[in-house]
């Protein structure tokens, strides 16, 4: 192919504007139509918004990240317009921590329509305003036809599609749509100096401030500053070509217009402060002091490619595809310099932690607080006019002419068709992104949960959701019950949440050890927060809940399991944070007034003041695209989008999962982790004797334990021990995250090479079959009868039963190095099964009281006359000595409980000594029950010869025990008896159900003495609900 000479490779865009042949056939009417072409395209764009986003948004809404949070805030304003105290999350927070306009507007709509419908209506309205905003914004740069194309681009731009349908960020979109509408007025004001334009600009910017503070703050830098700069350039009579002269001229022009600039600056600042003054007041009086929560937008996108896909590739692929054209156009004129800086800066900041530059530019603090994807989003918005310019040129301008000349019209058509089609496929992919890469759990019907909360005064306690995703906010929106969790991180003030990098408790497992530690704090210290109910949508948390004293109560119609903790006090009245009534009224009135004012002013402007020659002072663009830009920007979209979609199809259908032993093993475990068992089965050597049925059967009899039923694969390592042409031997190291901590496992697989694929050899299966055909076991089940009178009056609740009797068999305070704990034994001395709640209060000399609760080293439910060991970890020695401990109180509250007192099967054990004061417990557990014991556990107490308990620990085995079978395992146990001391010099007072008690004299334990001081009780988790654990 012969390329034209450089000079001939330039084409004027201006000459081709009116040859928009696919829309106009009649050349006589060309000039008439061309005036209105921009508006026609705008109308088409607005109609397309309704047809596309309007149709789909109701269905994408439940899968978005943020939509439900905004719905929750909207629900707050619908219920309590003038009361910013929201008690339902985090034990209470102030809603003045987020600009209210969007939520208040939705709240008003929700008075007529259901909340979700109100959200959708609001979202569509905002997108329509955004389309108009982009149209008007583009007119600052180019002609109306380009602006019309820009408006069309809004409908299809991946970053906007993602922000709306994947993130559901309505405040961002609201702020942006009004900001873009305000910019032309600001520009006109600075160029023409008319106060009307200033008023219009400020009115619209007021809506931005009231909608989204971040857009307002950064909008000043990335949108308003370039607009001001462009207005100053356009005000120059002649633009100097020399850069120094140009700089000087701009400064001079700025000084010439200093009154206008200062007036705008002062008024803008006053609006920014005054409109949402309660927000600034809150920021100052209650500053955010919490550990930064990791966010994918701050990742290195090369290392974490999934974050790169979501936060960079999906929103910005079109921008990268057209980057040569954008870069060329945006740097072509001096009036665009501000926009060029803003665009490239936003693009750089949007790249997150891929390079160290964003962190250096923003500083550590801002970098760790901000979600950086919004910068990429703004870059894409700034790029719209420049993309529209090129697209128009490509479809019906000089670029089209270029392609037609050097190839043919049909080649250009094919190129356009492939580019457009692949981009549309890419868009469809984004619409269904949540299907390909689930971002949220499946939709949960909240009505059964609401019914549960409404009945039997369950709302008098707080609840917690697990595995709900952002739908926890939707549940909150539909109920007036309170949860300890929440979904607005800036408002969190509970130390258990702010001291760890945990996004939410409900998805704690995704925050690793820190997340589970935070969740454990709440589950153990449930009394502190009146947390009584947990709605679990993820069995991953079951072991953590059970071993921390929670009992399953009921499985609701929607499949959600309700867990309950006994002996939890109802929510104590909490004083809301004090806020002046004036601020409350200001918050309820001023932001909404800004929107009303914007609507009114827009109406007045359109009716009486709108000028037809709106863009008359905007310079006409006269420049051309070089051939290199035309080639790259025309071909890159085809390459990138077809490449992206091809890769998706390849990953979905064509990837060779068994190309080598390591890949095969990695993919096998990947399928196993996501419970795609049929896919996992296909990694085994095809054999008529090893069928899918056989695989699933073998799996079913070895499943159920902590691994893999309650675990998530954390990391995997594969080592090829031996490999030849047809076979291999690999060793696999897997690390599993469970709710009870990490577990590691080693497996060895033999592999075979068949038909160009590597297969696993099925591991030898040792069947354990119980002799009996049918097993039986007698259970004694209890039913608590509850009230005698049908009444909601609280004092007669549970009036059939009293507080059950319990007794301390012994209580000790033990110090082991820096650690201190209270150990002992508690007896259910009643004739009914009980749930017991322990609480240790340390009274220090300076009136500081600290409260501690037991963790997993305690059986919370006891059958009649059963006893349990317990251990409560308390302050460390340094704290205790520095604060000067005065006394210790141990409280036990008991309640009748019909569940949870079956603790497992028969245990057998022998203890052998080991080095370093260790013993090895050779344990066996026989499951005589009629159900599997899913997580066999042993509650181990170390006793001295006199019978005193020194420490108590829960040790669990990862393998389940099927009914009628037994399991043996070795458990090392470190004794502390020789190194620890029993502290007797602090007064230790004991209470049961509020009454002071004393412990019975400690007796020698002959069994423990015969087993090197080790006493063991079974403490197992049984997943089948019928057995009431």
């Amino acid at each position: 192919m012969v390329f034209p000479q450089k000079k001939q490779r330039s084409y004027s865009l201006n000459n081709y504007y009116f040859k928009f042949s696919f829309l106009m056939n009649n050349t006589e009417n060309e000039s008439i139509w061309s005036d209105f072409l921009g508006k026609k395209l705008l109308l088409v764009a607005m109609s397309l918004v309704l047809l596309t986003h309007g149709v789909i948004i109701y269905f994408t809404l439940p899968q978005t990240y943020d939509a439900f949070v905004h719905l929750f805030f909207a629900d707050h304003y619908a219920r309590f317009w003038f009361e910013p105290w929201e008690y339902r999350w985090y034990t209470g927070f102030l809603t003045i921590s987020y600009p209210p306009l969007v939520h208040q507007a939705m709240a008003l709509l929700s008075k007529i329509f259901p909340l979700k419908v109100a959200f959708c209506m609001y979202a569509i309205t905002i997108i329509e305003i955004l389309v108009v905003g982009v149209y008007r914004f583009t007119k600052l740069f180019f002609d109306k036809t380009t602006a019309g194309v820009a408006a069309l681009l809004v409908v299809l731009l991946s970053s906007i599609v993602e922000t709306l349908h994947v993130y559901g960020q309505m405040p961002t979109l609201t702020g942006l749509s009004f900001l873009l509408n305000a910019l032309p007025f600001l520009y006109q004001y600075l160029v023409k100096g008319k106060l009307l334009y200033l008023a219009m600009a400020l009115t619209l910017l007021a809506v931005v401030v009231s909608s989204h503070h971040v857009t307002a703050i950064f909008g000043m830098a990335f949108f308003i500053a370039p607009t001001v700069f462009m207005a100053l350039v356009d005000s120059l009579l002649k633009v100097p070509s020399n850069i120094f002269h140009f700089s000087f001229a701009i400064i001079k022009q700025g000084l010439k217009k200093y009154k206008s600039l200062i007036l705008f600056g002062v008024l803008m600042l006053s609006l920014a402060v005054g409109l949402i003054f309660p927000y600034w007041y809150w920021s100052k009086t209650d500053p955010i002091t919490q550990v930064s929560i990791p966010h994918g937008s701050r990742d290195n996108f090369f290392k974490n490619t999934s974050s790169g896909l979501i936060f960079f590739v999906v929103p910005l692929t079109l921008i990268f595809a057209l980057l040569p054209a954008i870069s060329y156009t945006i740097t072509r004129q001096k009036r665009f310099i501000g926009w060029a800086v803003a665009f490239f800066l936003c693009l750089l900041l949007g790249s997150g932690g891929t390079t160290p530059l964003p962190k250096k530019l923003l500083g550590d603090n801002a970098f760790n607080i901000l979600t950086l994807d919004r910068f990429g989003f703004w870059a894409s918005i700034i790029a719209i006019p420049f993309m529209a310019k090129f697209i128009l040129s490509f479809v019906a301008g000089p670029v089209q002419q270029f392609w037609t000349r050097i190839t043919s019209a049909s080649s250009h058509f094919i190129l356009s068709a492939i580019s457009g089609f692949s981009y549309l496929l890419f868009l469809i992919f984004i619409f269904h992104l949540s299907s390909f890469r689930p971002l949220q759990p499946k939709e949960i019907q909240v009505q059964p949960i609401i019914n549960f909360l409404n009945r039997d005064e369950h709302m008098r306690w707080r609840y917690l959701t697990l595995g709900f995703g952002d739908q926890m906010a939707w549940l909150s929106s539909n109920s007036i019950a309170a949860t300890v969790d929440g979904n607005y991180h800036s408002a969190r003030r509970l130390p258990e949440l702010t001291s760890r990098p945990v996004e939410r408790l409900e998805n704690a497992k995704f925050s690793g050890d820190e997340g589970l530690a935070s969740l454990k704090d709440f589950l153990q210290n449930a009394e502190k927060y009146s947390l009584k109910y947990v709605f679990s949508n993820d069995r991953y948390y079951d072991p953590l809940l059970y071993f921390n004293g929670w009992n399953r109560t009921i499985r609701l119609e929607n499949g959600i399991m309700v867990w309950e903790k006994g002996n939890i006090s109802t929510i104590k009245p909490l004083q809301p944070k004090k806020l002046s009534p004036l601020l409350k009224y200001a918050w309820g009135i001023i932001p909404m007034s800004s929107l009303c004012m914007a609507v009114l002013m827009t109406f007045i402007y359109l009716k009486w003041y709108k000028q037809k020659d709106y863009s008359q002072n905007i310079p006409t663009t006269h420049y051309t695209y070089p051939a290199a830009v035309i080639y790259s920007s025309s071909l890159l979209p085809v390459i990138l989008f077809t490449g992206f979609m091809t890769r998706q199809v390849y990953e979905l259908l064509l990837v060779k999962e068994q190309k080598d032993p390591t890949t095969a093993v990695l993919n096998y475990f990947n399928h196993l982790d996501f419970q795609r068992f049929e896919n996992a089965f296909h990694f085994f050597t095809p054999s008529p004797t090893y069928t899918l049925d056989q695989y699933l059967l073998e799996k079913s009899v070895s499943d159920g334990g902590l691994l893999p039923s309650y675990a998530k694969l954390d990391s995997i390592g594969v080592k090829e021990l031996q490999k030849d042409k047809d076979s291999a031997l690999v060793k696999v190291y897997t690390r599993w995250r469970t709710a009870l901590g990490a577990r590691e496992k080693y497996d060895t697989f033999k592999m075979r090479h068949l038909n160009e694929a590597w297969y696993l050899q099925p591991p030898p299966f040792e069947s354990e079959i119980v002799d009996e055909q049918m097993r039986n076991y007698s259970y004694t089940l209890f039913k608590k009868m509850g009230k005698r009178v049908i009444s909601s009056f609280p004092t007669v609740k549970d009036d059939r039963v009293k507080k059950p009797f319990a007794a301390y068999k012994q209580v000790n305070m033990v110090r082991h190095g820096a650690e201190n704990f209270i150990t002992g034994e508690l007896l259910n001395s009643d004739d009914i099964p009980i749930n017991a709640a322990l609480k240790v209060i340390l009274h220090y000399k300076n009136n500081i009281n600290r409260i501690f609760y037991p963790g997993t080293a305690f059986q919370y439910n006891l059958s009649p006359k059963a006893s349990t060991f317990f251990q409560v970890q308390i302050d460390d020695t340094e704290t205790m000595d520095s604060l000067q401990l005065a006394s210790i109180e141990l409280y036990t509250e008991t309640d009748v409980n019909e569940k949870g007192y079956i603790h497992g099967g028969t245990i057998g054990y022998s203890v052998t000594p080991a080095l370093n004061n260790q013993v090895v417990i050779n344990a066996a557990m026989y499951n005589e029950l009629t159900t599997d014991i899913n997580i066999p556990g042993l509650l181990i107490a170390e006793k001295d010869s006199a019978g005193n308990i020194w420490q108590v620990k829960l040790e669990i085995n990862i393998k389940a025990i099927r009914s009628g079978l037994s399991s043996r395992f070795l458990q090392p146990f470190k004794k502390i008896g020789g190194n620890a001391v029993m502290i007797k010099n602090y007064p230790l007072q004991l209470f049961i159900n509020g009454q002071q008690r004393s412990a019975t004299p400690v007796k020698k334990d002959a069994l423990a003495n015969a087993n090197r001081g080790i006493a063991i009780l079974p403490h197992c988790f049984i997943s089948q609900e019928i057995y009431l654990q």
Partner: protein
Amino acid sequence: MRTLLLHIILLIFVAACTNPKPVKPIWANATDTLLLPHANLEFLTATEGCKATLLTCTQPIALPVNYAKGKLVAELQRTGGIIEGNAEICLSVGTAFFYYPVFLKNGSVTKPVTKDYRSPKTVNPDSALHHQRLLHRIDAYRNLVTLDNSSRYFREEEVYLGSKTGTFRAVKNLALSSYYVQPGSCVNIPLTLTYNIVQNAYCIKAGPLKDRYNNMVGNGTMVAFIYGNNRATYRVERTLQDGFATAMIPAEMAVGCTLQARVNETVSCYINLKK
């Protein structure tokens, strides 16, 4: 714009218009204590459209009113009896409210009944076998009436209960007065050992377990069978049903072991497991 301004000014004028304040009606047959049933309440007033309400300590009672000869008459005759105490008669006209404090009293005590109130109570022979009760009387309108031959309204008594386990009612047909006597702790644990040849297992039966009053120990009580030898220790947990707990122990694991059953601190004698 000018028209709009005119409308706004007119609106301000309209909003500024107020009705004259009504004058407080005079209670013609005023009294400190209203003895029910009572004659009509008469008020002198020129204002029409008054509503009358008797605000008792527990509820508001709307009184029918009529006007006759410049008087407002509120009828109390239909009220048979009432909860006695401080009250107020409230006359209202629009947004104006006028209050007249009175003391309500019934003319006579009607159908007094004696109430024996006992809080739901569960007793356990291991601790104490007594129960408190509270006696009082109320009339048909739920006013407290003094107890017979006394000026007191309440009398507290302590009732000693029998040691037999069961659910009892202090007052017939009144579920709320139930009390419960639970069995206490067992005093000894008889053990029976049999060898089942078919299953090659020992069948250990503990029971009947009884408390010191010869009541059968409660169902669900945990009995731990602990057996072992110098090699290992085993613990089998069973719950009591009708006084008995049974465990099957495979013979191959237990031959030569000694076994003991435990319920809390109560232990059985040791037995040797032999075929």
